[in-house]
């Protein structure tokens, strides 16, 4: 680790101000950034910890929505969604291990937009709105490719509002080493249609599988997508799975998600 300063503001405004410093970097749960620092792969001058900002924590239910503070841990999301939001509960309760879930946050996950992160698929499938200190951004516009989002320099994800589906399921097929999704599919059946968010698979980060959404919106059953196939073009290929394998898994996981949705 290189030397850095750390500051721990208690309000969003203070955090924004602190982030205006040269080479400042926000630190949420630190599940990505801390290992990066330990390997000397990042050299921030000041880390602005977001973990003492109470206004960014907690979960509130709205009419048909769930608003999750950006600083809310995966463990807290898993607890709050048990029995009420199947897909999100599964997703949050299977990220990493208990230590990761006790520290990692939804804001950190969506802001980093790792192509194999779990949360972006839920945001896409649940028509989420990403709230920042300056604006609200629809999930479809927020995620712009691998590790790329609509966030400006110094902009903080303060909360994420998800539309609660009638039925949902998250199906994670784990990469054998990292246990991140090799393919993760979030299936959400809303009153106005079905959305399918896919993570782990694409060179362009999280995406929605439009053909499956259309087919499932008229017939929410695994059979509805039997005749569909995913193109391997633009999918990731690595030691753990070729683009063709990932394309195959997207369909398998989507079918399982539909069958499992509750």
């Amino acid at each position, binding site marked *: 680790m290189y030397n850095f300063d750390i500051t721990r503001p208690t309000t969003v405004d203070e955090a924004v101000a602190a982030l205006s410093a040269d080479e400042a970097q926000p630190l949420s749960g630190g599940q990505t950034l801390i290992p990066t620092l330990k390997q000397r792969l990042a050299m921030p001058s000041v880390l602005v910890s977001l973990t003492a900002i109470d206004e960014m924590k907690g979960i509130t239910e709205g009419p048909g929505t769930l608003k999750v503070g950006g600083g809310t841990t995966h463990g807290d999301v898993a607890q709050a969604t048990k029995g009420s939001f199947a897909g999100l509960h599964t997703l949050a309760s299977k990220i990493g291990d208990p230590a990761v879930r006790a520290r990692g946050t939804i804001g950190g996950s969506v802001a980093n937009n790792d192509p194999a992160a779990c949360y972006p698929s839920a945001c896409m499938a649940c028509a989420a709105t990403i709230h920042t200190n300056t604006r609200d951004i629809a999930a479809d516009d927020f995620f712009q490719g691998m590790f790329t989002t609509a966030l400006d320099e110094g902009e903080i994800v303060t909360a994420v509002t998800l539309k609660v589906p009638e039925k949902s399921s998250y199906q994670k097929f784990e990469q*054998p*080493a*990292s246990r991140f999704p090799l393919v993760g599919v979030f299936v959400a059946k809303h009153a106005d249609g079905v959305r399918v968010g896919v993570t782990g698979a694409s060179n362009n980060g999280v995406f929605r599988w439009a053909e499956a959404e259309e087919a499932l919106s008229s017939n929410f059953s695994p059979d509805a997508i039997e005749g569909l196939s995913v193109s391997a073009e633009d999918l990731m290929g690595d*030691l753990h*799975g070729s683009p063709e394998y990932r394309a195959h898994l997207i369909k398998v996981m989507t079918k399982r998600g539909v069958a499992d949705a509750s």
Partner: protein
Amino acid sequence: MPKDTGIGASTKRREDLRYLTGKGRYTDDIRAYGECAAVFARSTVANGKIIGIDTSEAEKMPGVLAVFTGEDFVDVGGNPAGWLINSRNGEPMKEPKRPVLAHGKVRHVGDAYAAVIAETEEQARDAAEAIIADIEDLPAIVDMREALKDEALVHDEIGTNQCFDWGWIEDNRAATDEAIKNAHHVTTLELVNNRLVPNAMEPRCSIGSYNPATDDYVLQTTSQNPHLTRLLISAFVMGIPENKLTVIAPDVGGGFGSKIYHYGEEALVLAAAKKLGRTVKWTADRSEAFLTDAHGRDHVTKIELAMDKDGNFLAFRTETMANVGAYLSNFSTATPTFLHGTLMAGNYTVPLVYVNVKTVFTNTAPVDAYRGAGRPEATYSLERVIDKAAREIGRDPIELRRQNFIKPDQYPYASAAGLEYDAGNYDALMDKMEEVADFAGFDARVKESDAKGLWRGRGVNAYIEACGIAPSNLVGQLGSRVGLYDAATVRVNATGNLSVMVGAHSHGQGHETVFPQVVGEMLGIDPASIDIVHGDTSKIPFGMGTYGSRSLAVCGSAVVRATEKIIAKAKKIAAHMLEASEGDIELKDGNFTVAGTDKSVGFGEVALKAYIPHNFPIEDIEPGLEETAFYDPANFTYPSGAYCCEVEVDPETGKVRVDRMTAVDDFGNVINPMIVTGQVHGGLAQGIGQALLENTHYNADGQLETASYMDYAMPLAEDLPMYHVDHSQGTPCTHNPLGVKGCGEAGAIGSPPTVVNAVVDALQRGGKNVTHVDMPVSPHNVWKAMQSA
């Protein structure tokens, strides 16, 4: 009622109290006054010519005390290979120098070319980054087939990338070829034994210190083998006299082979300590462990099995390329040869075996012995090709094996691969395995899996290994440059408690519990009054360390011999005390008794008499009660086993789940069944890890793509089933005093082919004509196999 102490008792491991309460003392836990830190600058390219290394900026950095490069070590020796192998044409193997720090060339990613010593580790890291290395990037030599074309060289001075081309048994080559040519049926299989990173929980760490007043050096280091490390540093690398160098290996957090060897970092911290007059510590981070610990396996093999029309095995013939990496690690030439080729007859009465092994230098980390070391490679090749053969000729895989097993009345049995097996009963192991694995319930479990949309398969395996390494006379004839005996001193203190100094090193094996069980049983005293001392060359007589499942069979035998000497002397003292003839003294339950009388004296009284020799026959008996024994085994020991694995394969994703794993092993006599079971569990986890998950991948540029746990898949508890372990079918070893064979590696040897056999069986039951899947049988690999079937 089972015993709770002594031989055969599942005594709880006394060392676990400190391990489980955070009171272990590992090398990095040691803090010395005035300690400073070493950090290495390591190559980021796989193959490069060193044009120049500019350390001038680094030397000026805060806290920096010294910077070393390869230039500083040109006058010291290389780290040698411990075993000379001759090629088929009689030429000795190629032995390029392995320097302390790279000089002239860097030869793998992670190869250290400089070291910085600074007041703190962070300062040393900062300075290491300021070293400017001008290294000309050369094409990387990674693939073994390509390497053997010698178009580019790892070591220019030897003119080839082939270390040796070995044949075993060379005199049988023509007969084996003939048998295969004329056989009724020949089964051929090409397979890869996947390269593994050892991944000990504790990374390597070395602390060097030097006393200028006495010219004494101390090396505290993560070693399975402190005496060998001392010997190598003294006799080959640095020339420090053995009497001036103490090597201490305190608690060591796992080794699996990777800590048998001497590494350059150990020499560096000693040289730096002398130069600076300071204690110098280096602790590897996990990335360094991935890049520089000696890796395991990495064989590419073609095996053929010839059979007559009745399924009798006529010959095994293999051609193997074995990767040794960029430099020869200490045991790297023995592992693919005499720990591999000599086992290629397996448990079978096959009359002919011919093994050809070409070892290949590549621009990758050195490869050496890893849990099992050569024997897993042999077992995997044999037991995969036998399974394939059974399928090809329509025979039950167990029946085909049984037909060719060596039978109990054939021992001692001279195998076609040159070993003499002393004892075994493979049919009894197979019988027990069928019972423990619940063969009767298999069909019902197949139906249950079907109902879930999963394909269930069952694989079996029979293995034999050579442990208790090793008879010095034999290995000396085969090229070993050391003897492989072990030593122990039993010291009875005046107050009747004991310190037992052993050459074996315990890094998880439980020696501190097991050796006292043996000594306590022999003397009839409470094992709790006996302590084991190990891992310090200044305290123990000598030792060849712990690996090859040798601790109990070899060092334990030395402990027995030393204890026998104690008993003999104590009887003399007791005879004097009881005014009886020495021949009439019996030792029972810790008391020395005159046979046929009630005259008796306790062990403690005898011990006290030995040290307070009043009224003592000093003309006949020396005072004191301490004895040393060296033990050199007459033969290897031959543990064997029958394993069974049931898997479920998800036909949609290719994902394999190991549902049941049965290990029935013949370890001979068992001293502590609980510890033996634990050793089998650990071996199974590593074997299943190799079969299902672990893979080490260098890309064409020689970059290690699996250099962290993000891409190197380790087995987690959730990947492993509850095990069914049995060791009730032991046939005692005939040539060591305890009748023990060794259990540390069995699980890692027996399980990989069992898992793969089960996966192939599941795919066949599912209608896929898949005859082989290379390890790891990852979802992706299984899916690809299904696509092309």
